[in-house]
């Protein structure tokens, strides 16, 4: 019990990671059910029976919500930051340890509320993780749109408050708790990433909370912020005033797009650190890399309109959003070039965390390439809401994000348990996951180009038929099942290594950053974060906790 109600940042970090592990396991199961249903829509599933179209939509909604909020926000931002951020900046604790605990428990509460929607007789909400009105604003619009949708709103509202408290804590810690001598240019790049994502979290989660309040008021207090006049749902006129679903889209995507960067920026910072460590080289252009992380975050606030090209938004606004969106390619490319020049001829040490960081890089490039395509309003008019978009964001956000989380878990596992994770199992996990992930998400581009819409429950229906892409979809499903099965290797490795893994030596990765210091340093920090000496087999490195005057 004392371990559960702790305010210690490392224990809380582990608790955050366990919460997102529960969420990712649930979310993956839901996605597998979706994949199976897509290719055998008329086969009854064991335990669940025949799946109705609304059940499929509920799976889509819950999968998206779980993955975006409870996995890709909780693990990289709250989990890893609680685990190592105070260590990395030479602080003894977070600025507000109790606030950190409150934030965790609120997130756990939000998770429980969301999951409990499955237990409702009317079912889970159907309106997708973006909850577009009028579907989300009208209780009679679908079976799960009554109590289920209310639970969704409640859960997301609580999550907003929890994320907001967590960001306040991280910002106060980074700005106020750095050890002596820990100047801005001595911060590891993960800390720069957490700084950026915390600012984004503060700015955008409050907007989502406001939007959720407005939507709740539409549902229960008879207002009309989002429901248009004379809107007809299920044969009844429900629209009362000149509300506009566009308003929700603006508010939601003002949150939703920066949210993507909240998920991926910590992974970018971590990948930079790992590339430096496992090539035994300094980060190429440290200051530029840090500045570009912040620039991506800043630009990320200005691009939300590219989710709305076909929504009826003013086309001139679409042009402006297309320009800002393509501008993000510039700092992203600088980051990629920085990583490649760190890696180039660097004598890689291919440990499991390094492999996952390289996998992150691969997905970041593969998914990033379709970004500028979707950023063109003309091309997006065709591709919008097709599987092309699904392929794009699963590669760049889901796979890149999750691979960076895996990299972090394999890398920091010794800090959590004092043991190493099994290397052979880890490598097996990496290679199967990499191949299966590409096997799952690359063919989705083809489905998308064929015109397959995102939320359709079956490929061949009475009105439209996409039966010609059925073989492609079958391949995707089998690949997804393989991808899910590979994660069992990871789970087994995780729990077995925690119990019986090889004992970790002090500083097992020969890292320079402060979270690996044998004790919290009492003297001034005098070194930069990545002082590795020319790569290859030599293991010359100068950790940050050593004094600068000490010569070898």
């Amino acid at each position, binding site marked *: 019990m004392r371990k559960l109600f702790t305010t210690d940042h490392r224990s809380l970090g582990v608790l955050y990671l366990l919460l997102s592990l529960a969420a990712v396991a649930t979310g993956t199961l839901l996605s597998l059910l979706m994949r199976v249903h897509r290719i055998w829509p008329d086969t009854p599933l064991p335990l669940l029976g025949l799946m109705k179209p609304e059940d499929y939509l509920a799976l889509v909604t819950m999968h998206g919500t779980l993955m975006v909020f409870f996995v890709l926000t909780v693990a990289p931002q709250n989990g890893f930051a609680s685990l190592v951020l105070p260590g990395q900046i030479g602080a003894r604790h977070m600025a507000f340890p109790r606030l950190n605990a409150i934030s965790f428990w609120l997130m756990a509460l939000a998770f429980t509320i969301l999951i409990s929607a499955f237990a409702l007789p009317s079912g889970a909400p159907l309106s997708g993780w973006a909850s577009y009105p009028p579907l989300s604003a009208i209780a009679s619009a679908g079976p799960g749109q009554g109590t289920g949708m209310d639970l969704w709103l409640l859960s997301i509202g609580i999550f907003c408050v929890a994320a907001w408290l967590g960001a306040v804590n991280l910002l106060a810690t980074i700005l106020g708790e750095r050890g002596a001598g820990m100047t801005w240019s001595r911060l590891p790049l993960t800390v720069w990433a957490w700084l950026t994502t915390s600012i984004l979290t503060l700015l955008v989660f409050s907007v989502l909370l406001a939007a959720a309040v407005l939507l709740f008021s539409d549902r229960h207090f008879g207002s*009309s*912020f989002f429901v248009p006049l004379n809107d007809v749902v299920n044969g009844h006129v429900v629209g009362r005033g000149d509300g506009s679903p566009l*308003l929700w889209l603006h508010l939601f995507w003002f949150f939703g797009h920066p949210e993507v960067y909240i998920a991926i920026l910590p992974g970018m910072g971590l990948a930079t650190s790992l590339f430096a460590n496992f090539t035994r080289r300094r980060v190429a252009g440290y200051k530029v890399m840090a500045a570009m992380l912040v620039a991506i975050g800043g630009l990320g606030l200005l691009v939300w309109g590219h989710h709305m090209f076909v929504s009826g938004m003013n086309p001139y606004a679409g042009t402006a959003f297309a320009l800002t969106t393509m501008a993000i390619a510039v700092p992203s490319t600088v980051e990629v070039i920085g990583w490649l020049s760190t890696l180039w001829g660097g004598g890689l040490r291919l440990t499991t965390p390094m492999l996952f960081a390289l996998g992150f890089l691969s997905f970041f490039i593969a998914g990033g390439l379709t970004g500028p395509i979707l950023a063109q309003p003309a091309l997006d008019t065709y591709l919008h809401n097709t599987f092309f978009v699904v392929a794009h964001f699963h590669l760049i956000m889901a796979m890149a994000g999750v691979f960076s989380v895996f990299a972090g878990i394999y890398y920091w596992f010794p800090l959590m348990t004092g043991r190493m994770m099994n290397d052979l199992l880890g490598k097996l996990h990496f290679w199967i996951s990499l191949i299966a992930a590409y096997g799952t998400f690359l063919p989705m581009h083809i489905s998308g180009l064929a015109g397959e819409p995102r939320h359709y429950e079956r490929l061949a229906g009475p009105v439209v038929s996409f039966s010609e892409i059925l073989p492609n979809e079958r391949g995707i499903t089998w690949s997804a099942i393989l991808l899910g099965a590979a994660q069992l290797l990871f789970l087994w490795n995780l729990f077995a290594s925690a119990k019986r893994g090889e004992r970790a030596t002090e500083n097992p990765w020969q890292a320079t950053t402060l979270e690996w210091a044998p004790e919290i340093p009492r003297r001034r920090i005098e070194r930069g974060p990545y002082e590795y000496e020319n790569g290859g087999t030599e293991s010359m490195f100068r950790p940050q906790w050593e004094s600068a005057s000490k010569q070898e």
Partner: protein
Amino acid sequence: MPATFTPKNVEIERKHTGIGGKPPVDRRPTGGGGDGDNWDNRPSGRRGPRELLSRYRLGVLFALAGDLMFFVALVSAFFVRQSAGHFDARENYVSDWHPIAVPPILWVNTAILLLSSLTMEIARRQLFREIDVMEEWLGLGRPAVKRAAPWMVVTVVLGVLFVIGQWIAWGQLTQQGFHFNSPDPSSHFFYLITGTHGLHLVLGIVALAAALGALFTLKRVELRQIVVDCTAWYWHTMGIFWIFLFVLLAYFQ
């Protein structure tokens, strides 16, 4: 195995300063300036007398920045909804937005809230008068608490008056036929904006009452300063938010 995951608590919590600790004022009472006073060399957490205070101020500042975005979102929704409309069958542009005149009692409420910010600031400054702080720190009495408490009581009373005033304004609007669920979007926004702001003020009153209690129970001078200081900044910010929201409701309908 790195020492970073040793289970034992490395933090040595000092319960109260007492004689010999550092007084929570910027200048030390007796000279100082020697090498032992190089606070930059000390581990974080005890690097200066006001480190704890600035940490909490920083937290409150960031929390309020997020809160600001909440109201910014509401206000932008206000303007978007205000400009929304549709074309009827004869191609006339019709808007369902009917401006409401704010109840005059809002002017009184605004004055009360401004006054309460003033009393709160007077209370806050009592906690930072150096001579009183030194006296409290030496344990000679609690002059700062004695001076601050009445002003905080006044602030609580004014805050409660404001909330009651807002309640009366709601009642007046309802009598004129502007219910929350009347079809008029401007009344939705009036209730939502005053309601969410009122909720913030109720939280503020609870915080004020808690700070008032903490003034008498907290042992460390710094902590007494912190509770009053943070509550005061929250209270001032809600006052500033209200001025903007009131101008919006009164003049931008």
